[in-house]
Each structure stands twice: as structure tokens, then as C-alpha cells.
């Protein structure tokens, strides 16, 4: 299913990011939260930023939306969305894009919906703000969309308040809200983490089908490798503010190359794996502090293959094969010996 592309690789990208860095001023110095991250997404394509807490994946998305905290400084050689340079836009122009051409979905649908307004009012408000037109038109669009995303009694649902809905329904409402205008790009930050497993699958299916129908690009931010493998066309694995491996989902999951990616995959139990027979792999240690100057490889203190040069050398992304690259000094063959035996 994911073998068939949902996008045309020849299309111009919807979003193109090059060398995006975010520095945050903290009392102890400068925190390099995101360090020269580059990626692009095309219409209909799903790109996943995957990594553990503190890897900079959420900050990256906030940087694209220009929603960073005041203490943060954004720099990039390129953030082009649909032909516009996002970094050069005024705050007013940016506000016109947010929620209109770029939609966002967050982890907790309860906190992203305003508890004191009815669902219908919140959906209409977005439409009126960005598209103008009358309340009636907005209401019609809301009902149309709710039906589209499989909500059984839309007219009645629109008069309800967020707390009257279940978690899955709330997340559907967030998706509907995002669709009220016609976004070209969706940024979904852990959209299913707070949901039950069966609901998670339903929401992902919904996102996927809407994405195909409206040819939207999707940036999916998550720590869940299962979700990534099943949803994404391309994957960027992030660690300590850097992309340490990127490529097509098939390449990254079938031939994980960077020691961190390999470690992560060994950390999750595989079907048939049992604690009494084969232990889970683990990555010892914690993410290094990103405050101050960063030299060498950020993963070296947790890496089994680390050697002297890792502390000093400039470690850049290099190709495993075309379109699949990783950030390490060692050639891909090095890791083959320690490869996880997996059915």
C-alpha cells in the first residue's frame, strides 16, 4: 500500500526547508535546539519527523509556522512555502497563512479547542476569518466537512461543546477545523499519541484519505515508529536537533544505517519477541546538553561504534544510496555485523 506513491516526485515541493536552525537563549548560554535541518514535501506526500523528546522535531514545526517563543532565534537559508519565503513575511502575512494555507493538528485535542465555544462557532470562525463570506456559507461548509470525515449527525454535533466529545471525535473536529480553509500543507504534531489504538488507526486512515483527495502535503511529527512506517513516504530521523538519517520510509526501515536509528528499532518489541527469551536492545545514556558549542557527533556518548574522531570531526550527511543518507563517519558496512536478527 505504501509502496504506491501518493505523490508525483516531479511536482515542485510545497515546502522546501534548507539549513533551518533555531537557537534559544537560556540563562546558561545558547541552546541549539535545531541545527541545520533540511527537507522538502510535495503535494500528497507524507514526510515524517521522528525522534524522542528533546530532539527538536516539534520546534522545527513551530519554526516553520513562525510560532517560536520570543527567546528563540530562527535562521535558515531557505523556507519556501508555495513560492513564498516564509522567513521574509511580516507577522500579519504569516497570520493569514496559518490555519488557512498551512493547517496544524496537535497532540491534545482538548487543549487545542476552546472549551467555552460551540464546535460549530469555532469551525465557522476560522472560515470567516480567512475566507470572509457569510455565516450561512460557513455553516454549510462545516456540515459538509463533518459529513466528509464520517461524523454521523453533523448538525447536532456542531452545537456541542468540546467537553461533550470523546478524544477521537475531538481530533476529528480538529481535522475538520483545519479543512475549513483549503490547506496545502498539514503539520500534525503527535496527532494520535493521546488516543486509543483502535481510534488511532481510524484517525490515521482519515488523514490519509483526505490527503489523497485534497492533494495535501503532510508533515507528521511523532515518536511512534509504527505510525511512521505505515504512514510516511519519507522519514527524517532527528536526534539532538539534527537529522541523523533520512530517506524513503522503505529504505530507512529496511536498511536502517545510523546507529541511533538501528538502536531505536531494536528498542521496540517485535512480534513474537518475549522478555523471557530475547531481551530488548536499549540505548544507554541520555541526550547531551545542546547548550553552547557543539563539536563532533552528538550521538557519540551513546554510540557503540564511537572512536576518537567522533569528538572532533565535522560530521555531515552522506549517502548510503541515492536518496538515503545518514550522519556518521563510518561507512554503512561497519554496522552490518551487529545487525538485529529479525524474522
Amino acid at each position, binding site marked *: *500500500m*505504501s*509502496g504506491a506513491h501518493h505523490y508525483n516526485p516531479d511536482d515542485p515541493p510545497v515546502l522546501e526547508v534548507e539549513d533551518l536552525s533555531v537557537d534559544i537563549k537560556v540563562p546558561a548560554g545558547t541552546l541549539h535546539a535545531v541545527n541545520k535541518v533540511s527537507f522538502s514535501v510535495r503535494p500528497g506526500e507524507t514526510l515524517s519527523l521522528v525522534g*524522542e*523528546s528533546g530532539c527538536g522535531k516539534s520546534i522545527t514545526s513551530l519554526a516553520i509556522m513562525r510560532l517560536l517563543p520570543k527567546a528563540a532565534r530562527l535562521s535558515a537559508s531557505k523556507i519556501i512555502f508555495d513560492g513564498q519565503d516564509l522567513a521574509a513575511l511580516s507577522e500579519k502575512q504569516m497570520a493569514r497563512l496559518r490555519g488557512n494555507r498551512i493547517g496544524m493538528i496537535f497532540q491534545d485535542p482538548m487543549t487545542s479547542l476552546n472549551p467555552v465555544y460551540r464546535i460549530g462557532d469555532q469551525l465557522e470562525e476560522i472560515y470567516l476569518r480567512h475566507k470572509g463570506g457569510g455565516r450561512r456559507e460557513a455553516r454549510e461548509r462545516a456540515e459538509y466537512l463533518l459529513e466528509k470525515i*464520517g461524523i*454521523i449527525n453533523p448538525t447536532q454535533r456542531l452545537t456541542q461543546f468540546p467537553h461533550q466529545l*470523546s*478524544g*477521537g*471525535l475531538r481530533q476529528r473536529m480538529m481535522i475538520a477545523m483545519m479543512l475549513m480553509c483549503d490547506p496545502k500543507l498539514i503539520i500534525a504534531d503527535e496527532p494520535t499519541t493521546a488516543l*486509543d*489504538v*483502535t*481510534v*488511532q*488507526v*481510524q484517525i*490515521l*486512515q482519515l488523514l*490519509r484519505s483526505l490527503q489523497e483527495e485534497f492533494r495535501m502535503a503532510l508533515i507528521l511529527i511523532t*515518536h*511512534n*515508529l*509504527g*505510525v*511512521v*512506517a*505505515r*504512514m510516511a513516504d519519507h522519514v527524517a530521523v532527528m536526534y539532538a536537533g539534527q537529522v541523523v538519517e533520512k530517506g524513503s*520510509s*522503505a529504505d*530507512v*526501515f*529496511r536498511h536502517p544505517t545510523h546507529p541511533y536509528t538501528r*538502536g*531505536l*528499532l*531494536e*528498542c*521496540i*518489541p*517485535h*512480534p*513474537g*519477541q*518475549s*522478555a*523471557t527469551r530475547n*531481551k*530488548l*536492545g*536499549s*540505548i*544507554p545514556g*541520555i541526550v547531551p546538553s545542546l547548550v553552547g558549542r557543539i563539536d563532533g557527533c552528538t550521538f557519540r556518548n551513546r554510540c557503540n561504534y564511537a572512536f576518537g574522531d567522533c569528538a572532533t570531526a565535522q560530521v555531515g550527511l552522506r549517502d548510503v544510496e541515492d536518496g538515503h543518507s545518514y550522519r556518521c563517519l563510518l561507512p554503512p558496512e561497519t554496522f552490518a555485523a551487529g545487525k538485529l536478527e529479525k524474522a
Partner: protein
Amino acid sequence: MQSEEDKYPQAQQVDGKPLALDIQHLTQVFHIGKTWLNEGKPLRAVDDVSLQVRNGEVLAIVGESGCGKTTLSRLMLGLQKPESGAIYVNGQALVDVDRKAFARRVQPVFQDPYSSLNPRRTIGEIIMDPLLIHDIGTLEEQRQRVEETMAKVGLPHRMINSYPSQMSGGQRQRVAIARALVMKPEVLICDEPTSALDVSVQAQILNLLQELRNELNLTYIFISHDLSVVEYMADYVAVMYLGRFVEVGPARDVLERPKHPYTQALLGSVLTPDPELGLPDIDLGRGFPDPLNPPPGCRFHPRCPKAMAVCSQKEPEKLTVDGTEVECHLYAKEDADIPV
């Protein structure tokens, strides 16, 4: 330890030894909207639940939010008194005893290590607290026991005076485990012990729990929604839906040959990191179950892809099929060819 009065002599025995944890017909009903005048609406959070775990085994309870897992764990910890039913730990009834007696035998590990440790106490104080409550040993012995336990869960001695805010999520979860273990309990109730942790840390904690189980012959009740973690840890699996166990059996049988349509749907929703497979198609209605108004008959039938006429009329009985207990009408017919 036999000093407790034997009010509940029907505790089960296996091979002449009592079960580590034996729960019989546990029921907990809340009355929602109860006021001075109004009786309120009954919510059967835990409805006639029985489970048996032998020493050193891991029983996993699987279910989605609102299914009653949390209430069941609170009952098993003695934090709430059940409406009816009995709990035995190693043959000893724990229904009428107070929290303190309970605490020596059953201890919890909670989901979120950021909220399960008091931010104002040091690690040493947190781990020592149960010993102080139960007045076990002299101060010197207590200190020694804290240090031993810290070593056991892999915490270096020099963290003894640190505060939780100075530690990572994985370290905090180790502290929570150490606090649970310091009393040398027989049963550990682990309520989603890794779902708030990063993937790499989750693996460390699961491995630690496994090692401790081997070393100390601990019995775990492992509550989780993550079936890949459950498969990794559990010997037995109980699937819970709206307060009832709909399927209970050996982990291998339940996870490889699920019988109940709900178990099948849960297993179908597991997303393994395999890019070849796309999103699974699960055939579940979206009708969100309302525990206050459970449907008549089988509670799962409004969402069940295999529902029959009888499902909305009659509650299914507990049946044993291939060593697995199932509550489903599909298996009630004599000639039912098991559709999996």
C-alpha cells in the same frame, strides 16, 4: 503471616500452593450524579471480574480508555473498597484489612514518573518513606535497605540526595520502582509503566522489570494499551471492555489466535514498524461506548463486525475455548466453526 483471620476460606490452590494473586468476582459500582436526595446513575466500572495469577507470572490487562483498568488497579491496591468480591494474596484475604496491610504485599508503579514522585522530597526520602510508615528496622537498617534497593534498580548511590526535577524520565521511573520494591511486596501493579517514556528508555525499564521479576520472583499485573509491549512481557492476557473481561488466556493463545472480535480488532490496530504494510483496515463501528448506558446484551455488539441477532438480546456467558475464556456468542453454538 497466617495470623489474619480466615474469613474467606475458599481461596484457590494450585499444586497445593496458593495463588500469588487471586481475585474473585470483583465488582465496583459508582453512582454518577449522586446527591443527598438522588440515588444517581450506576456506573459498573468493574463488573464481576475474576483473575488468577501464579507466583512469578505476569498477567497483562489490556483495554482502551474508560474500560475500567484504572478502577481495577485501585481495587487491587486497596485504595478503594470494592462493592463486592474478594482479593487474596498468597491465599490470604485482603478485603477487610486496611490499606497499611495491603501495602506490604501489593505495590504500584504508575504511568507518569513526573507526577508520581513528590517534587519536594529527595530520592532517598521518597524511597525510604514506606519503611518509615511501616516502622521497619532501625534508621541504620532503613538507610541500608534504601541503598540496596537503589542499586537493584540501577540508581547510583550519589543520587540519594537529588530531587526528582534533576532526573530524567527513565531515572524517575527507576525511583518509582525502587519505592515499590523497598517493602519487598509480592505483587507489583504496573499501570502503563512505560507509556510516558521515550522508546529507548522504555526498553531499559522493561528489561529492568524483567530482571527484577527473575531475581525476586515477583508477580506483575501489567496494565497497558500497547500490545507489542504486552506480548513482550506477559504470560497471561486479559482483555477488558466496559468493565468486563471479554477474553482471558495464555498470552500466546490470546495474541496469536484471538477469539473475541474486540481482541481481534485491538490486535489489528497494532502498528509494527513495517513499511511494507500500510494502515490496517479495522472494521469497528465508531460508536463510542458509554459506560453509563451500556448496550443491552453483549456490551460490544454495537461496534462488533460479527454481531448477530442474539448479541443485542442476551448477555454472553463465559465459555472456555481452547484454554481461553471468552465472553462471546460466536462460540456458544455447538457446531460453531471458529471464525478467526
